[in-house]
Structures are given as C-alpha cells and as structure tokens.
C-alpha cells in the first residue's frame, strides 16, 4: 500500500500510437507503444500531455484499459462534445502519431489477483475502463493458473444507455461464456433492443441486492462511473451491509473532462 516517500520522479514518456479501434459510436481504444513503461496495476491511470506545434500544451488523465501483462498500453476514451482533448484522441489520432504519457498514477482504486475476491464491479458508461483492466488481468492470470477461479469469482454490473453503447460488449460476452466464475449483468437505461430480457433501469437497491455478492462474503467492490451513479451505488452498498473500506470508488463528471477521471484522485479524493 505504501509508496516509498523518496520515490523518483515519474517521467513523461513518448508514446507512439500502434493502432486505434472504435468501441462504440462515442468511444475508441487507442493502443500505444511506450518504451520504458514500468508496468501498472489494474485500475491505475495515466496523465496524457498533448503539444501543439506552437508549444501549447494541455494535460488530462485517462484510465488504463489494458492488463499489466499486455505488450502495449491501451486507453479507451469517450468523446465529450465540448472536450478539448477527447475529440482529438477519438477522431484525429492515428497510428504512428506521438503523444506523451506519465504514469502509472493512483494506488488505491487498484485490484489484482493478490488482492483476492470475491470481486464485485459496478460500472456506468465509460466507467467500465478501469474495471475492464481488472477483468482482463483476472482472465489472463487464471488462464495461466495463477489463481483460484472460485475464490476470485467476479460479477460485473454494467449500466449503459443503450445496447449499442455497451463498451467491450463482445469481449465481455466472450469472457463470461468461457468462464463460469465471471458473470456479466447489463442494465440499459434508455433503450433496449427488441426481446431484451435484462434490466432496463438505473441501478437501484433491488438490483444491487440481487447482483452483489452478499456482504458477509466481504467482496472487494469497485465502482466507477458518473458521480450520481457512484454516489448512489456506494451509498446503497453500505446500506446493504458492505464495509465502506471495501467499497472503492472513482467518479467522473459533471465536467466529464476526464474519461474516468481518476480518482482516485481527488478533491479530498
């Protein structure tokens, strides 16, 4: 938990775009080659710095989507219409371009298999990104028999506005299909396809009581999404008996200036 008080400065590193891929109409994954990247823990984020040709610079924070063992670093970014950085990352950036990254940042909203389970993840919109790093890390670790699947049993409750706005939809379905200790539950808050039999409302107490591991199992809980969702979910889980110290949150918005703005970072974080 404790970082050495005399750490060396985290340097800015030049990152080269290896590939870009759309996730939904508003989100895109950008995969970077980052020479010298020191590795990260699932849930951490990076600072991104862009430099215009006249020297103007601006910085934002983005959650890391890739698992620590992946060869490259992936960020999934949601386009915010009034954003300064996200339209550039989601529309302009292409393979071969260079930006700067600094990280990894954040030591609290992190989970790896050593943390243990059971694991309950609650995401809203692009709040799925740091949770996906955890799911991918868990999957890779279990595939190499590095952990006990039952003790790391995981449920993900994921709230999206519509079927087409579910980020990582196919990958999540694929992972859950081949792993009976991973359950993915979607709720759609605005519209649902014909024949949809899943949840169709905002996450509420009844939904959490139905999907969360019982509080007596002391699940590790990670909640990431827009502020109202996180406030409501975290508060309700405490009402359901979960220990506040086991409920870790990351909120973003209402500026939405960051796709999961970390958190863990802070306004008294």
């Amino acid at each position, binding site marked *: 938990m404790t970082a050495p008080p005399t750490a060396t400065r985290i340097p800015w590193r030049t990152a080269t775009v290896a590939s870009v891929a759309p996730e939904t109409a508003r989100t895109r994954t950008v995969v970077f080659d980052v020479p010298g990247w020191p590795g990260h823990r699932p849930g951490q984020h990076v600072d991104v710095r862009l430099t215009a040709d006249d020297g103007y610079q601006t910085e934002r924070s983005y959650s890391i989507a890739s698992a620590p063992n992946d060869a490259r670093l992936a960020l999934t970014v949601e386009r915010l219409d009034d954003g300064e950085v996200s339209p550039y990352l989601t529309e302009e950036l292409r393979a071969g*371009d260079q930006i700067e990254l600094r990280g990894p940042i954040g030591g609290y909203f992190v989970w790896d298999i050593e943390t243990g389970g059971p694991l309950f993840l609650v995401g809203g919109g692009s709040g799925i990104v740091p949770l996906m790093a955890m799911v991918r890390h868990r999957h890779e670790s279990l595939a190499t028999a590095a952990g006990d699947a039952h003790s790391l049993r995981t449920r993900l409750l994921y709230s999206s506005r519509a079927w087409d706005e579910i980020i990582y939809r196919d990958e999540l379905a694929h992972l859950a299909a081949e792993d009976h200790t991973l359950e993915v539950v979607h709720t759609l808050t605005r519209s649902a396809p014909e024949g949809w039999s899943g949840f169709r409302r905002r996450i509420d107490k009844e939904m959490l009581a139905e999907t969360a591991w019982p509080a007596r199992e002391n699940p590790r809980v990670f909640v990431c999404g827009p502020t109202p969702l996180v406030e409501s979910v975290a508060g309700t889980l405490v009402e359901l008996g979960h220990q506040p110290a086991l409920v870790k949150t990351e909120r973003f918005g209402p500026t939405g200036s960051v796709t999961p703005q970390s958190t863990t970072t802070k306004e008294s974080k």
Partner: protein
Amino acid sequence: MTPISRGFRGRRQPEGTAARLPPGQYETRDFPVLSAGPTPHTPLPAWDLTLRGADGKSTRWTWDEFAALPREKITVDIHCVTKWSKFATGWEGVSIDTLISEAAAKEVKTSAYVLARSDGGYTTNVPLADLTNGKAWIAFGYGGSPLPPEHGGPARLLVPHLYFWKSAKWVRELRFMDTDSPGFWESLGYHNYGDPWREQRYSGDE
C-alpha cells in the same frame, strides 16, 4: 524532446485565465466530485470537531458550538491534482487561526505538523505553517448554501493554496504532531506537500 501531437490545436485560454492556472491545469466551470469511497453522512447532532495536541490534550466543539464561532466569507481559486482548477469559489467557514486561539485557551498546544482526520478514515498531512495566518479554514458553506455531503459536508478543511486533496472532506479532527506523517494519498504515490504552482502532484516531483 517533446513530440508535437500532429493535428492538435487545443483551446487557448484567454491571457488572464492562463496566468491564473498553475502548470498542467485547465479551467472548469463545474465542480467535479472525487472521493475514494462511499460518502459518509454524519448527522449534525453526532458531529464534533476536535483539536488534539501532541501531548494528547484536546478540545472539541459540537456543531452548535462550532457554528457560533466567528465566521468568514472566502473567495478562492481551487486546484485539483486531477488537472481541473475552478476560479473564485465562494465558501463560508471558521479560520484555523480562530480554532487555534480558542484551543490555546484550553491549553491545547500546536506543533509543526498537522494530520487532519475525517469520517470514513481519510487523512491528510499539512504543515502547521500552511494552516495559519489566514491560509486555511474549516468550511461549512459553499455558494451560499450548507456544504453538500458529496463535497465534504457538513464541514471540510479548506487549504486553497495546496492541491485540493489536502482540503479534507468530512473533517473531524486536527491532530498536532512534532514529526510529519503522510496521510492517505500521500502514502499512495501522491506528493507529500502538494503545491500546485510547483506542480507537486506525485511522489518524486521536485
């Protein structure tokens, strides 16, 4: 060498804004909420605030006693380590100077370092010199209304010249200490002091 981000133009700030922004920050008009866990909701009758000396002597105020102390209106720029800054935020609160002089009358002595403790277990460390001489408050009002829980109500520390994680939400105790001791984020990779103008975001900065 800093690479140029091809095709990035960015949004230039007006000159007055740029001068008011610490390095790496951008201005937001909203007030983002960032907390590490669930928001505690302490009812006012159960709330108190304690100042505790290094020798263990302490004094406390109930909510009513605290609310009766001399209050100040404060307008300040605030800077979050996650990059946003918000200009001219309006607060109401009790100066730490006021609390310390009240505590001195109860023989509670100050020390060089302070650890703020909050409901929910959050802690942050600040040198005493950064809390005195009109530099910090326990704030209970924001924008003319009671401070909402998600922003740290009923009361939070307000230390606007440092990154905002130092302005501990839901604060309940200021403990004076002879030696410095890192708080929550300071133990998790964030800078021990956190001066936005020197961009002291993370351990190892400067």
